[in-house]
């Protein structure tokens, strides 16, 4: 069969666009953004719609279409992980400190080092932050506009991709934590013995999750 002749001004039929999206996502190990798909496909294509079709087509199959932040990727279905022993890479065991720090960054982002230490009640070791940066699971966010302009940390798209999250809003238990007020920054009541010199300012981590 001849491939459909495409005029310069006519987008390929949707079935064809779906094939294209499928091929591009399939060939890549990394999630591909909508913008990237648009750039690669012929003019006039609608990759968003093609993605929706493709997602439905792969429902219940051995491979799934997943969203990672603003990007899309094909991944094997989690229930078949046991078949994949050969492919799985032994990841370095994260320390308890690293896991907790990661969770605090994810749920409180953007969060300063001082705030992490406040929550954990213990100093954050150098290596912990370094390790998470190196895994590309956290990165620097914007500086806090408070005295000292401390840097903040936020989680990355690689973090979302690794844990199969579409966005930071989908973190497990986020709503409950917020409802219980556990994500509020609640500074220690000021003691009557002079001001507390801890200059961590009230954080507003909610900005990230609010639209």
């Amino acid at each position, binding site marked *: 069969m001849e491939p459909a002749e495409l005029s310069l001004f006519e987008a390929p039929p949707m079935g064809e666009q779906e094939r294209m999206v499928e091929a591009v996502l399939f060939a890549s190990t990394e999630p591909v953004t909508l913008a990237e798909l648009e750039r690669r496909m012929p003019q006039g294509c609608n990759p968003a719609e093609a993605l929706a079709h493709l997602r439905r087509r792969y429902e219940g199959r051995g491979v799934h279409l997943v969203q990672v932040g603003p990007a899309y*990727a094909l*991944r094997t279905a989690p229930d078949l992980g046991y078949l994949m022993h050969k492919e799985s890479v032994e990841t370095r065991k994260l320390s308890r400190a690293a896991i907790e720090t*990661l*969770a605090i960054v994810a749920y409180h982002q953007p969060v300063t080092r001082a705030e992490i230490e406040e929550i*954990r009640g213990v100093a954050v070791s150098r290596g912990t932050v370094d390790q998470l940066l190196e895994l590309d699971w956290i990165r620097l966010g914007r500086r806090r506009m408070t005295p000292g302009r401390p840097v903040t940390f936020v989680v990355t798209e690689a973090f979302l991709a690794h*844990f199969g999250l579409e966005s930071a809003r989908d973190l497990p238990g986020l709503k409950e934590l917020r409802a219980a007020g*556990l994500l509020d920054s609640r500074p220690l*009541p*000021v003691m009557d013995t002079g001001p507390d010199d801890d200059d961590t300012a009230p954080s507003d981590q909610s900005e990230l999750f609010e639209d």
Partner: protein
Amino acid sequence: MAQTEDWLETRKAPADRLADEALIIDVEGFEGPLDLLLNLSRSQKVDLRRISVLQLAEQYLKFVNRVVALRIELAADYLVMAAWLAYLKSRLLLPPEPGEAGPSAEDLAAHLAFQLERLSAMRDVAARLMARDQLGRDFFARGQPEAASTRRAVRYDASLLDLMRAYARIRTRDDFRPYAFDREHVFTMEQALDRMRGLLGYMGAWSDLTSFLPEGWGASPARRRSATAAHFAAVLEMAKRGQVELKQSEIFAPLLMRRKGEV
């Protein structure tokens, strides 16, 4: 406070003593005072919001006292927390002084309860996070990405970490690398080669390499290391050129050398 009184009555129960000992054995396993408090609070088996801070403070102080009695060194932050809890305890037990400024003891207690609840909540979600299906463990990306095209382009990449490291490298080099200072303690291979060439005529029988080290380089370990390494490299070079022979009876034994052709 009746509840607290009850608890004080029973605090010498054998079960409690056992629990204390278990905690002491674990002292290194705690990640700071807050972690320790959270662990102690577990024994109250109540909602963290309804926890008795007074009771918790008692437990903490008792724990710290026991550890100190056993002469286990406690990090300063444990002691700071102990001092603070002792203060809080006194505030909770005594009626507020009239006209006293600042937050009430109840506010401080509530804040501590909040901190514990928050830490506990973060622990829980951390566990939930790690229990999720993970990429490369439970689900997988395409194993064989395709590079089908003949068009090849090089894309240069660098991460923020690379950038920061590069900058750190430059700045630390400035701070820690005065070159004159360096040379004072570094013997180069060229220098050693020059020296050894001059000494070649004096190498008769097998002799120890270290006996050829220059004056004034044997005293400090760093200088000795540098000179030894340089001379070792130099004699290897000379052996390669067929000027000397080397031998060593076993690992770490003295390295012996002599002029080639000498019998």
